[in-house]
């Protein structure tokens, strides 16, 4: 398999890079890669993409022998899946392995936001505690959590929030009667009826900007938004306006419309927690995700069934 060309667009996790390099002929897009070299372009049969660098029609066209797009991550929104289907290119992702971590981070962000953990840390580390007490913060236990998308991650968030005596409600494409939570047929209604709105759905044409101005107004000055999904779930320009004007109570965001660019106005706000896409950043999850990518690559080129096919 050492002659099979596998392309990586950017350095992500050293372990992943090492493991691919050991088994295949690894091409690094960031390291003097030339698309003009036909021999190389023809030898590339797989691309390992991630949440920033996908596989659009343009990239797919550049590699005539591309057979497999293996995503290091669960979201496939950056992959032109229609093009892949048309060319019979297989696509894999890394579901399940980061479900728990995404849910853990969601709760961590809720607590960091409501209880001002980051601000507390800064307050003590800057020496301000000697000058006076910190402010009152907002209790989390017992609040109502509204979840947009009750898939794997949504359910995992609900399970954790219940241990904090939270009431759970949700919106999704269709109601799930087996879930014992209150269903709302629209995101605006959900937002009107919860204190904490969590985005936990996948990004599709339908869910782009699903969190818009109307939703933010419904959530209101006492409500907060938590997004560990995709930046494009939220109308970011409107979000900045709503936060600056005080129409929305607060936000904790791990993802942004145009990573790594974060709207400058957000940095000055006290009621905002911003993390640079760390959901799935733990060593354990990165290793597990990398192992799935490798296992899919190996399975494909050994003519065995893919482990986690998306397409």
């Amino acid at each position, binding site marked *: 398999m050492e002659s099979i060309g596998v392309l990586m667009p950017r350095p992500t996790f050293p372990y992943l890079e090492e493991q691919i390099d050991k088994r295949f002929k690894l091409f690094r897009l960031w390291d003097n890669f030339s698309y003009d070299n036909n021999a190389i372009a023809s030898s590339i049969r797989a691309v390992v993409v991630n949440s920033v660098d996908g596989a659009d029609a343009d990239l797919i066209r550049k590699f005539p022998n591309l057979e497999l797009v293996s995503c290091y991550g669960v979201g496939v929104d950056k992959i032109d899946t229609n093009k892949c289907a048309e060319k019979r290119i297989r696509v894999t992702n890394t579901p399940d392995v980061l479900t728990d971590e995404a849910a*853990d981070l969601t709760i961590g*962000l809720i607590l*960091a936001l409501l209880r001002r953990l*980051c601000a507390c840390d800064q307050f*003590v580390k800057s020496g301000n505690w000697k000058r006076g*007490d910190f402010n009152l913060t907002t*209790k989390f236990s017992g609040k109502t959590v509204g979840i947009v998308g009750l898939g794997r991650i949504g359910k995992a968030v609900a*399970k954790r929030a219940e241990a904090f005596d939270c009431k759970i409600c949700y919106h999704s494409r269709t109601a799930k009667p087996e879930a014992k939570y209150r269903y709302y047929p629209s995101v605006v209604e959900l937002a009107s009826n919860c204190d904490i709105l969590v985005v936990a759905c996948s990004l599709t044409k339908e869910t782009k900007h699903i969190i818009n101005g109307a939703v933010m107004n419904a959530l209101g000055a006492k409500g907060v938004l938590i997004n560990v999904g995709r930046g494009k779930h939220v109308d970011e320009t409107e979000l900045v306006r709503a936060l600056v004007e005080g129409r929305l109570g607060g936000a904790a965001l791990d993802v942004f419309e145009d990573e790594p660019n974060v709207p400058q106005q957000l940095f000055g706000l006290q009621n905002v927690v911003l993390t640079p896409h760390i959901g799935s*950043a*733990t060593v354990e999850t990165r290793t597990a995700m990398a192992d799935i990518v490798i296992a899919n690559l190996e399975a494909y080129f050994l003519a065995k069934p893919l482990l986690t096919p998306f397409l």
Partner: protein
Amino acid sequence: MATDLPNILVMGPPLIFPDFQSQYSHSYNFLTFFASSLPLPQYLSSLNILPSSIRAILCNNMQRVPADLLRSLPSLALLVTTTMGTDHIDMPECRRLGVRVATAGGSFSEDVADFALGLLIDVLMRISAANRCAKKWLRSELPRNIPPASRVGGKRVGIVGLGKIGTEVAKRLEPFGCKIMYTSRTKKSSVPYPFYGSAVEVAAESDVLVVCCSLTEETHHIVDRAVMEALGKEGVIVNVGRGSLIDEKELVRRLVSGEIGGAGLDVFQNEPLVPCELLSLDNVVLSPHAAAVTSESFHHIMELVAATLHAFFENKPSLTPVMQD
């Protein structure tokens, strides 16, 4: 100067005091002893107030209430502290003198447990460190200076003290897939988690220690060098109890040398002073004794203190909840 109003000696002062004072200034004569540098007898005589006229104290843990002070107030019958802990009060002397001590009881347990979980997740997943880096997030580069994050799920969490707070912590940890175990004064038969007879034993089996017991002579430095050694190099300590539950000097030494993985600390031995070595560590999350301080608990304790003092001075049982003894 108010005359017929009952005197309340105020020490600390509790966080609620400014609001409480303005709301109840027509009901009580608040003696703001916390603001005086005089010893109590001189303070009282400077106001022409007889020590025997003081039947109640309102305090928190920012000042100690020692035996000699208690003894100098012959009519003292009620001591209201807005804290759960009573380590700042000479409790044996209160018992000897027949002074009833009213505390916040379990009022803050949920808030403190929430905060403990927040600190735990933050330290493991590096949330505060990442928040600091968001400004420096560069194209093609993941923030390099954040120490590696680690999963919450699967971690073995040892709870030191399975009282009201410890129980709420355990309940919140369960769905995260943590293995929960504990040490406590006594084994709790109705609890499904493994019990260990000492902090060293539970530390040996844990990846994370959550310290939430009350501070007594027995629990002073319950997390000492031996416990930290047993916890190990990757271990994390979260403390929402009292600073003196941990040998702070030893903890700081280990954090600086890398002999322990990280810490989430809400309390310190000499608040508001915090060891300066901690201020620059990215694997440490610090907070200013804020675990119980929410708007909700603030308003709740205001009501409890009001009802408790009212029932005491009216000598009538209260119709609304009062503080526990």
